[in-house]
């Protein structure tokens, strides 16, 4: 039972990690928070259901949803972030993306209602499981976990080993310096949003597969937690987002296991406050001049 909860924690944590990664990517490169991000995560579940209901095979629907959500992410960049590029634009961009998020939630609630919508055929996917060492683990959960880990390894490779990744890192370090090096910062920003949105879409599809339904409030609740994970792991630190996400997922699962119920949600915030008190830069926060300058 305990091991099962642990595994559950890892699975949920990997979903948190995917969402947090999206936040972290945008924050790392543009130094701004994108509050519309969690709503893209929310929408991807609904879009998948809609496509499957139209008769499109699940696998193809998943890919299509990633494309659509990716494009949506580019739209968000255009509306809420392109104009507010400077240092003073942090708050404005964040608020604008927040407002976009509101519009997306409201729209989704109007169109699909506030009750959960289930996906036809979802139940058959969930039942398939494997028994080992006295526990029954669904293939889906294992698959989700493995897929997420593979995805992160690919992402890591892309960021650290390819020229594309190098451009991203240079822009994250200093957009001005990157421009001087001939990097097209506008393109880099767009690609960052594209990647972050696709990650959100994947997370949303995974949630849909795991639970079998989509709800409109999931973006809010999970998105906000992802923000906390961002602070825990270190703003803009990709490893921090991943490990932070997994950690929080496991801790929450443990809290639930020990009967905390609703209060398990509070775990992530307490952890965040703790990290801010002891190590404000986050668990993986870099050192250097940034850490020094107060305010």
């Amino acid at each position, binding site marked *: 039972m305990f091991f099962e909860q642990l595994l559950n924690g890892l699975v949920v944590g990997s979903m948190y990690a995917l969402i947090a990664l999206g936040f972290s990517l945008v924050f790392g490169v543009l130094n701004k928070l994108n509050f519309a991000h969690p709503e893209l995560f929310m929408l991807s579940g609904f879009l998948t259901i809609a496509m499957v209901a139209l008769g499109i095979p699940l696998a193809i629907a998943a890919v299509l949803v990633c494309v659509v959500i990716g494009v949506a992410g580019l739209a968000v960049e255009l509306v809420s972030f392109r104009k507010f590029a400077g240092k003073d634009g942090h708050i404005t961009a964040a608020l*604008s993306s927040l407002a976009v998020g509101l519009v997306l939630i409201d729209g989704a609630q109007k169109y699909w209602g506030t009750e959960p919508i289930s996906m036809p055929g979802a139940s058959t996917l969930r039942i398939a499981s494997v028994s080992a060492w006295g526990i029954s683990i669904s293939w889906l959960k294992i698959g989700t976990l493995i897929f997420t880990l593979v995805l992160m390894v690919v992402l890591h490779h892309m960021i650290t080993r390819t020229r594309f990744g190098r451009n991203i890192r240079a822009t994250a370090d200093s957009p001005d310096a990157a421009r001087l090096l001939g990097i097209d910062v506008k393109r880099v920003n767009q690609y960052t949003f594209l990647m972050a949105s696709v990650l959100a879409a994947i997370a949303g599809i995974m949630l849909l597969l795991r639970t079998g339904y989509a709800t409109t409030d999931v973006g809010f609740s999970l998105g906000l937690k992802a923000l906390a994970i961002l602070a825990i792991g270190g703003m803009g630190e990709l490893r921090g987002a991943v490990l932070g996400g997994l950690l929080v997922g496991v801790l929450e699962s443990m809290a639930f296991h020990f009967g905390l119920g609703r209060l398990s949600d509070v775990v992530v915030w307490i952890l965040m406050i703790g990290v801010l008190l002891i190590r404000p830069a986050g668990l993986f926060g870099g050192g250097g001049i940034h850490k020094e300058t107060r305010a």
Partner: protein
Amino acid sequence: MTSDHIIFTGLNILLAWSAYVILMSGSLSFANGAFMALGAYGSGVLTVKFGLHLLVALPIAAVGTAVFAALVALPALRTRGVYLILVTIGIASCLRAVLESTPYIGGVRGMSGLMGTQIWHIAVLVVLVGGMLWWISRSPLQRILDAVREDESVARSMGIHTVYVKTIMFSAGAAIAAMAGGLYAHHMVFVRPENFDILVSIYIVLYIILGGTNNMWGPVLGAVTMTLLPEVLRGASEWRGTLFGAMVVLMLLIRPDGLLAFRIQSISARVMPPNREPQS
């Protein structure tokens, strides 16, 4: 306009001001809905369970909320602004879960029996808070707040204890939100944790963004508009979220400081003729 309209407009003005007070020192708070909840439940417990009069319970709840706000926000107020935003989001997110898990105050089902709010209570509070903001805007304190808001490092280099200033304003904002919450609760008779979702906190901030972030009237405009607009435009209340969100996105693109964007100059000098030495 029914008395309900007046009451809610007045409460929203107070809430918008509560966030504005915090914004004056350069911090953005997404927790004011939670402070409202603390005020509501705090004063509710004092009136319902301890039999205190509403006008005694309100200040007590407000002070308690202010102290709580200061304690929780202090670590974040010492560092970058983004951390305060996250902490306030955290407060707002956690509070509902905590309230729902506390049987003493009714858990998910909430509390009832909260009565006693009169329109004049709200009117007096609006006048008091408005008067305080008016006074500040004409005093040297406004300049100090502007300095902290615009460039905190430079403010510190002048001897301003910026953390102290930010904490005081944060607590003051929390106190105002708490009192508004208490008055709201004792008007509605019932309060439930779901009334104080994080969405409330977000809306409060957006009132200021729409109305104007640089002076005390902007929040008023934003609060009044967003409270009354759904009444005026039939069907707008249904689409409140989309309408509001779209308005904010547009406003930020066109006029980022909000509608009433002007800044009130705190002092002006008669220009001295160039050849005369001023008396010192």
